[in-house]
Structure formats: C-alpha cells, structure tokens
C-alpha cells in the first residue's frame, strides 16, 4: 500500500503540538514520507479563534501554512487529490457529508472526518467523543483516526524526536490540562510507551489481515 497523500488534521490535535511549539512531526511526515498534513477551511477558521484560547495560535498557524508544513484543503487542492480518491468523490459530496456530520459533532471534527472519508485518507484527531458519537450514529469514520500521541510515538520510533523532546511535549500538555492517552497520564513518555498501542508505524504491515479497517487500525507507512 502506498503512503496516503495527506493526513487531515483536526484542531484539537494540532493545538497540542502548537502548545508545545513542536511542529517537527508534521514536517517529518511531509519530507520523509510524502504525507502532506492538511486542514479543512473549518479547522483553519477554528484555529484562528479557538474558545478560551481565542487567537493564541494564529501566528503558529500562519507560519505553518507559509512554510507548507500545513496546507488548507481548499477546492483546488481538494480537486487535485480526487485522482486517487474513491469513485464518486467530489467537493460537493464532501461538503454535504460534512454538514451531515456537523449535526452530531463539532464543525472542525465534522469536516475533518468528512474530508478524510471522502478522499479515503487518514485523519488526526484526539476527539474520542466525536468518534464514539459518529459510530453510534452510523457515520463512517476515517481509517485510521490518529491521535497526537500516535504521531509523537511514531516520530520517536522513526528517529525524528528524541525522548527529551517527547517528554517536553507531554509536560507542556499536562501543564495546560490537555487530555492524553491513559498510558501517559501518570507515566513519563518512555514508561508509557510499552502500554500504548500506536496507530501509526514505520515499515511494512507484518500481518496481511482481511479484517475491515476501523478508526483504530494501525497505519503502516514507509519512507520515500
């Protein structure tokens, strides 16, 4: 399986990287694996004014967009991805699916999931409530939905981030009362890692499973 062309990122996961001022994982994905981290227009809008944080992340967002570490999934960019998308995928279909998801989950997650499902790409989101609500309402989910810590663990595995950098991210998130997987709540990054099942791994898939992929299926990617 080739690497996916993009990773559709939601604001809650991006915020965790912005809070710890760590965007190397996104650059690593783009440069070493050819996976472009992308955000929907809705997530772009959300990051420019985000609840209690207000405009705190605008500078980091602008910098990431300018450097190409992140790219907005606008109509032209979306159209350019349709070649490898499932048959019938279209911008109108994505918008309509997004509106359908938005009845149940927050706008950012709704359009992130809708874009990923329409294009057949993975998503990055920490919102477990959005995942469970989508499941409960028979809405398709991206396969897989990565969490911020999947990306962090992956970057550690692939040598992009050392333990110190990963622990700094974890500390910053704890300081900001951000959520994280249970394995890391009371353990350092290295102690939590053995109890964490990452959904993103470097290398070929060791098992040729026939099970239908789900939001928690591990995605195997290879360096380009």
């Amino acid at each position: 399986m080739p690497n996916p062309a993009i990773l559709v990122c939601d604001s809650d996961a991006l915020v965790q990287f912005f809070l710890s001022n760590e965007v190397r994982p996104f650059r690593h994905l783009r440069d070493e694996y050819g996976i472009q981290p992308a955000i929907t227009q809705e997530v772009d809008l959300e990051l420019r004014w985000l609840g209690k944080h207000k405009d705190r992340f605008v500078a980091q967002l602008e910098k990431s967009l300018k450097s190409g570490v992140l790219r907005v999934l606008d109509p032209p960019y979306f159209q350019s991805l349709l070649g490898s998308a499932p048959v019938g995928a279209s911008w109108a279909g994505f918008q309509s699916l997004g509106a359908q998801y938005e009845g149940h989950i927050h706008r950012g997650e709704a359009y992130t999931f809708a874009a990923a499902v329409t294009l057949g790409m993975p998503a990055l989101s920490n919102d477990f409530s959005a995942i469970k609500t989508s499941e409960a309402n028979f809405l398709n989910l991206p396969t897989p939905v990565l969490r911020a810590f999947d990306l962090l663990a992956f970057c550690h595995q692939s040598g992009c981030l050392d333990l110190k950098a990963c622990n700094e991210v974890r500390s910053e998130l704890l300081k900001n009362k951000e959520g994280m997987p249970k394995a890391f709540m009371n353990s350092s990054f290295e102690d939590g890692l053995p109890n964490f099942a990452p959904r993103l791994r470097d290398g070929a898939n060791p098992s040729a499973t026939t099970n239908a992929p789900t939001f928690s299926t591990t995605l195997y990617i290879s360096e380009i």
Partner: protein
Amino acid sequence: MLQVVLDSAGLDAKTCAGLLGISPTVFAEWSAGQRSIPESMIPLLSAVFSVPLEFLRSPKTAKREKPEDLTPAIWFKFRGPELVDADRECVVLIRQLGHYLNELESVTRNRSLQWKTLFESIRSATDLQAAPREQGRSAARMFREGTALGHGQKGSGEVLRGLLRSLGVLVFETPLKESRMEGCSFYVGAQAASRPCVFANTHHVTWFRRNMVLMHEVGHAIFESAYVGASVDFMDKEENSEPLEMRAQAFAQECLVPKSVLIHIAQSNGIKWTNLSARSLALLVADTHVEQRTVVDAAVEEGLVQPEMADELKRIDIAKELHEISEHALSTEEYLERFGPDAEQWVGKRTTTLSPRSLRLPVGYVNSVVEAYKNCQISSGKAAEYLVIDRSEFIERFGDIYAEAEE
C-alpha cells in the same frame, strides 16, 4: 453584504465575531467581501442575521440591491434609540441559539411545530375589526382551549415555559442589566424552519411579572412579530394605549387569569372579594402566578372587585406575606437555603462563558442538549458549542460518558 446589515442594525463587527466565536479579523474580511465565507458557515450566518443564503454565497448579487432593501425587518426594530448594545448582542446570541435548537431537533427528531397550527388558527378565527382588547381576550380563550392551559383552574406560571416549549416556542429569560427592554418577541431560525422566540429580561423583574411578560410576547408573536420583524416592550411603559399593546396585554391577562381561575382560587382559599387583605391578596398572587396589579386588574374587569377599589388594592404591601407563602418570591440564595443541596443541581450550569456577553440559557434547552449527549446523539464538543462553553467546562459540568472507554 454583511457589513450593510451590520451598519444598518447598529451592530459592531468585532462584537458580532466574538458572539459567534469567529476570529474578528476573518469576520471583518467576510463582512467587507474580501474573503469568501465557507459554505459550512453560511446557514448559521444566514439564520443569525436574517440574510438570504444566496446573498452570503455571492455578495455580488447583494451589491445590486439598495442598503434599505437588504436590511432585514428585525434589525430595523432593534436599531431604535431606546435600545442599547446589550439588547442587540443578546438578540444575536438568541438567534444563534435558535439555529442551534433547530440543528439539535433535526438530529434528535424531536421538532414541534404545534405553534404553527395553533397560531394560524387563532389568527384566522380572530375578528381583526373588533376592539383590540376583545381580540386579545378571544385569542387567549382559543389559546387556552387549544393547549393544556384550558384544562385546569389553577395558576399556570409553573407549567407555562414547558407548555410553550412543547409547542415549539423558544423561551428565553436572562438578566440584561444595562437594558430597559422588559420583553420582546421575534422569529428565529432559517426561513424554512423559523420558530417564535419570546424573551423576558429577568433583571429586577419578579417571576410573577415575567409570566405576564412572556405571555404578552406570545400575544405579539401570534399576531405581529412574524410580519414586522420583532416586537419590543420596555420596562417603564406602564399603560400602553397602542392597539397592538392593548391586544397583547389582554391576551396575556386572559391566558393567565381568566375569571374561572380567579373564582376557583378565591373559593379554595376562602377569600372574600369584598374584603381583600394583604394575606388574601398574597394568596391570590401566589396561586394565580401573576403579580398583584394583574390580579387586581383582572378582578376589576371580571366584576369581582369595584373599580374604585383598584388603586387602593394595588398599593397594599404584600411582600412579607408572599415571601412566606410562595417559593417563587424567594431569591436564589433563599431558595437554596430553604430547599437544600438538591436545589443546587442547576446553579451555574446554564451560563454561557465563551461569548463576550454571558447569558443564562433556558433549563429546557440545556436539558435537551445534555440528554442528546447522554443518548450519544451529539458529541461533547457539539454539546459544548450548543451551550456556548468550552469542551472541558462541559465535561466538568455534566460528566464524560466516554471516560471509561477511552484508551
């Protein structure tokens, strides 16, 4: 397009952006037509500002229109000199919540449109050539017959809000300290899914008075609000001889204190109309759920009390007696002290915290949001958006149903 509406309504773009949780910079660019509005935001903006969807999608269409042809009727009403920024901001927030309520009801499949048939039948059966007060009374009798109000002979203040909600009316009560507005009514939601909304300012207004204000606004909503954009009533206008106001007032009075209710309550409390004391007046107020002057006015109109006694009866101080008899006369602190910690269930859980202007949301609305979350129909993020609070605050207030399942 948006800028024209904001200017003509006296709304500040930066404040509106804050109220809607949108970046002020981006909102200013949308308003000025410098940046296109994402399709996902158009239904919300259209519902809040009452602007047609196509004008927001292609502002060039709107540019051909004159500014006065673009300004929605509701904003003509709310730009008057008697209104302050707080009023307009509150209306923006309420209209946003009206949109959210429509979204929520379409997901929970729990939409009530009963108001439509009821209001329509009242309008068509009312003789609009009759005297305004008679129109109001006749409409009230139809309203009582068409709802559960007509089934009892007791005060209806305690069931009023639930009844209006079950009809599909959005009922909003919140303190607006800086405002002189006592109540208003207008329609919320996109044109195809609009519903009436009645608002009462709770700042320094008793629950008994608010019952009257809400029904007065329902009177306006039945007859005019849909056609004139909105109806607005101010605190200091005691007697209003405008025909529309007379009709709405008569509607409210007849809905809440018809003769049968007055007689039943007086009889069950052994009250003699010829000998009303502070205690008996307090009992009448406590049981009819309307303020003293409304009880007296209704009793005079129904011939139970001599007109010349009215002023004297209105001047009797019943505060002490009412305080002893009715829990609705207690302040929040007194209520909590009397009814204990169980009563604290809703304290502080209904207030919005993300909007620049804090509002107290209706219990029914908050209940619907929390229930939809607990039934897995909406996520915590969506529920938080509907309650205009942060996601972590939502979890803190109402719990996390997925806490155990999460890895």
